[in-house]
């Protein structure tokens, strides 16, 4: 591997690494706007100018690759600093400087670099700034708004639609100082990945219609998480303010979603706001007048009651869903084993195929739930009663006890007909974060955390186990389901009380072959499971074909 010296730091890099990346590896930041690791090199923002081998003419670091040994790069010489100051001035002379009303403020490339490389005063004092009258609020598509006045013409968005989404809706129009970004007539920016252009826009020119004016970004608490929109399992940053989720942004994972995520995934958190929340444990019981009434109940009493019901029941079933974490699913299976429940139907839902491009050919998923594979590995599903028996058949009518571990397993959980079918069980227990029609019909409704409030492991379409962490704790009496299930399991098997997720995962790894040898601390890119049917390390081989079914709509399977 060739060596390269950047500001006296000599490192070895792969041949062909460009200088921006090489410098990053050496711990030197080279400022840049138009460069993006997944987009073609255009070298046009000129912010990444560096001095090469002491030469007089500066070179754009993004367009120089390390090919031979001993390249000398400097970013700390006066020539480079002067050029950076010059470029910053050029960027800012025509920029509106409307930071107080700009969504990008706080995460803006212009603000950051102006602070670091710019100067505190303007020499552009007697001229009028260039503006694009009438182009301040142009909807490029349903998700993206353009304010041309703020644009710095880096063309990242244009290249994204040409090179990543492959849809090419955006173009670079006009010339010189009048250059602008836009869509072609009658062709809106409406591809499934369109909001990514907002993420890669270094300034506030492109803003998201969903996030626009929702929050000042410096108030956002940003936590790593996983999108629950489908079984691709895009790595995301969940950004919330005081437990109000404001947006999802993609988090880089080269093996899965790379730098991208789809527009649908970005809106999935809105379900947490639109559906009513199940806030406290409650049960249905006969009141003094003999009428059934719903009353609050404490957790201990609720779990004790559930233990009794499980002990007494003649025939029980525990239904899980692909929304559960693998740990939750495994604990459910443990409870079932401890109480001789044989029927563990797994409710799954098919959605449209969603494809996220990455450098290995992309990942496609068509489950509408994030963790069908993890739930299956943990022991849900299998022989016996199927989800179809429950939801479309009359299987519940034969049950003394039915536990549905997810009150929002799909839209069917809100369907009165389905709820009525499930309600035919003698005693219906529902876990869930949503106060769905199903939860309201339950004899015992137990409030558990949303995926934003809990930690756990999802197994995506590639059979890759990925960990996510709670972004914020659940409010009030709501508890993470894994904690509740551990407490319930403790009522049958000693030693589960207060078990941490680490304990649960470690026990699971001991017992479930697919997870054998996995440490609780999964690598940041996740771990490909050794499962028959998975094709480790060849991500392109998994994908749409693996499960078939590209139709939209809800299906159920055992």
């Amino acid at each position, binding site marked *: 591997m060739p060596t390269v010296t950047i500001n006296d730091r000599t490192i070895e890099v792969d041949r062909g690494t460009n200088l921006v990346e090489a410098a990053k590896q050496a711990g030197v930041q080279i400022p840049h706007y138009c460069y993006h690791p997944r987009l073609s090199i255009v070298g046009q923002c000129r912010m990444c100018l560096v001095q090469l081998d002491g030469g*007089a003419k500066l070179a754009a670091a993004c367009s120089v690759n390390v090919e031979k040994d001993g390249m000398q790069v400097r970013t700390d010489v006066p020539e480079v600093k002067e050029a950076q100051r010059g470029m910053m001035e050029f960027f800012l002379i025509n920029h509106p400087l409307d930071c107080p009303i700009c969504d990008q403020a706080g995460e803006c490339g212009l603000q950051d670099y102006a602070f670091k490389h710019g100067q505190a005063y303007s020499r552009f004092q007697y001229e009028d700034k260039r503006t694009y009258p009438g182009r301040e609020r142009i909807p490029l598509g349903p998700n993206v708004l353009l304010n041309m006045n703020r644009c710095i013409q880096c063309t990242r968005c244009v290249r994204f639609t040409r090179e990543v989404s492959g849809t090419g809706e955006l173009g670079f129009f006009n*010339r010189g100082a009048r*250059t602008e970004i836009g869509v072609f007539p009658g062709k809106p920016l409406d591809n499934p990945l369109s909001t990514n252009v907002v993420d890669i826009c270094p300034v506030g020119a492109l803003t998201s219609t969903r996030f626009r004016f929702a929050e000042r970004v410096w108030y956002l608490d940003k936590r790593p998480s996983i999108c629950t929109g489908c079984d691709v399992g895009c790595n995301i940053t969940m950004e919330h303010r005081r437990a109000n989720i404001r947006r999802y942004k993609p988090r880089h994972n080269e093996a899965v979603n790379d730098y991208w995520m789809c527009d649908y995934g970005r809106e999935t958190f809105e379900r947490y706001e639109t559906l009513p929340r199940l806030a406290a444990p409650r049960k249905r019981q006969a009141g003094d007048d003999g009428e059934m009434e719903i009353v609050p109940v404490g957790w201990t009493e609720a779990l004790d009651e559930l233990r009794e019901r499980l002990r007494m029941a003649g025939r029980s079933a525990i239904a899980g869903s692909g929304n559960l974490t693998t740990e939750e699913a495994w604990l459910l299976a443990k409870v079932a084993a401890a109480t001789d429940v044989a029927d563990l139907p797994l409710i799954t839902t098919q959605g449209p195929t969603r494809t996220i491009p990455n450098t290995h050919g992309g990942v496609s998923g068509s489950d509408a739930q994030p963790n069908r594979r993890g739930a299956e590995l943990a022991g849900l599903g299998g022989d016996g009663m199927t989800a179809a028996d429950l939801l479309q058949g009359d299987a519940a009518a034969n049950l003394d006890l039915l536990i549905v571990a997810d009150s929002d397993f799909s839209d069917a959980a809100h369907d009165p007909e389905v709820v009525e079918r499930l309600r035919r069980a003698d005693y219906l227990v529902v876990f869930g974060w949503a106060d769905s029609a199903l939860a309201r019909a339950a004899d015992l409704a137990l409030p558990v955390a949303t995926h934003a409030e809990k930690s756990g492991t999802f197994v995506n379409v590639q059979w890759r186990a990925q960990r996510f962490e709670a972004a914020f704790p659940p409010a009030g009496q709501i508890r993470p389901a894994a904690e509740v299930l551990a407490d319930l399991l403790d009522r049958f098997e000693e030693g589960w009380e207060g078990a941490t997720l680490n304990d649960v995962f470690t026990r699971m790894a001991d017992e479930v072959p697919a997870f054998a040898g996995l440490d609780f601390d999964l690598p940041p890119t996740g771990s490909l499971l050794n499962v028959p049917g998975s094709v480790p390390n060849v991500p392109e081989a998994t994908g749409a074909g693996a499960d078939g079914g590209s139709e939209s709509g809800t299906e159920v399977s055992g």
Partner: protein
Amino acid sequence: MAFEPILTRNVGHPEARSVDGYKKRGGYAGLAKALKMEPGEVIDEVKTSGLRGRGGAGFPAGLKWSFVPQDTGKEKYLVCNADESEPGTFKDRLLMEHDPQQLIEGCAICCYAVQASTCYIYIRGEYTEALAIMEEAIKDAYDAGILGDNAMGSGFRLNMYMHAGAGAYICGEETGMLESLEGKRGQPRVKPPFPAVIGAFGSPTVINNVETLANVPHIIERGGEWFAGIGTDERNTGPKLYAVSGHVERPGTYEFPIGVPFSELLDACGGVWRGRELKAYIPGGASAAILPGDEFYDLPMDFDQIAKAGSMLGSAAVMVMDETTCMVRSVARLAKFFNHESCGQCTPCREGTNWMELLLTRIEKGQGRPQDASLLANICTHISGNSLCALGDAAVGPVKSLVETYFHEIEQHVHDGACPYPEIRVFSNGQAA
């Protein structure tokens, strides 16, 4: 000095536009000779001649041809740069309108030398007459068997196409031209890779100016040694077309051995018009620094001497300015051109040319501030060398010379609060009052 015209020998002989007429006047002897030589020998002959590119950069043509890799297995291309768009340039137009076969012959020899079977002549879109003449000449050359599957019976296959631009100066930049040729937005590519390695349609490509290629038949026919004997020294050889415009009695295209003193060129044009004094001249097109007339009156007009004087030969578009010329207004007009023609891709050129135009216009209007001259100079340093292609540097050329050489005129504008030169009304026939 009696100099027998070489490049312009067929000007005034309209019959030379056809293959027959051109042959009668001695044409296609160079191509016939070249096709009997090895391609490498042709390149060596051009190297011997010392021919440097006539488009502006002055890169040795033979050397450029030798950079084309022959072992890639890819198609190779010659693109002739006929996108002559800089203010004051009109030499290539003359060559195409009056001697199209000479250009076709030059292109054919170059194609043979680098073993390219396809040649595109990218012509400025406004050159409709030159385009029609070239199209006609190419058709004639096909009919006469000069072009086609069996060029002059040699077995060498050569196809030639005209491609008209759509009105952007930036498409005269070689990679911008390739983008435009490929049907994309005309904006320069990041270099390297250079076109000799990855050019048109991802293939090795030679790009030469019209005048450069027009020299080639004569080099092959009469030998590189003969060619090298013309001009000032071994680095500045051959005949050169000078497109003289501005305040002279007879503006036009003049052919001289390269390195002709400016004074001789001016005399050939009948001197400064209306008996006025020479104030300054631009030796090499809109992007060259302005030279004061008195100091550089006898400057030999070749690549190296002009570079030493702080300007450049460029495209040899000589613009002469008399004593009534306001330098600030002239440079403001040039800045307007570059601002208008900047492709908008890279930051220093997009923003810098715009800023320079605004500043210069304001100074010209008499609203300048004392600090504006140093601000202009600083903007120049920020653009210069930092832009993606040469257009940024080109835009800086005249502005920098204004600040350095005619600083006092800026000061005068600022001090007077008005332009000290009378406004020149220009009538529709182009004559100034």
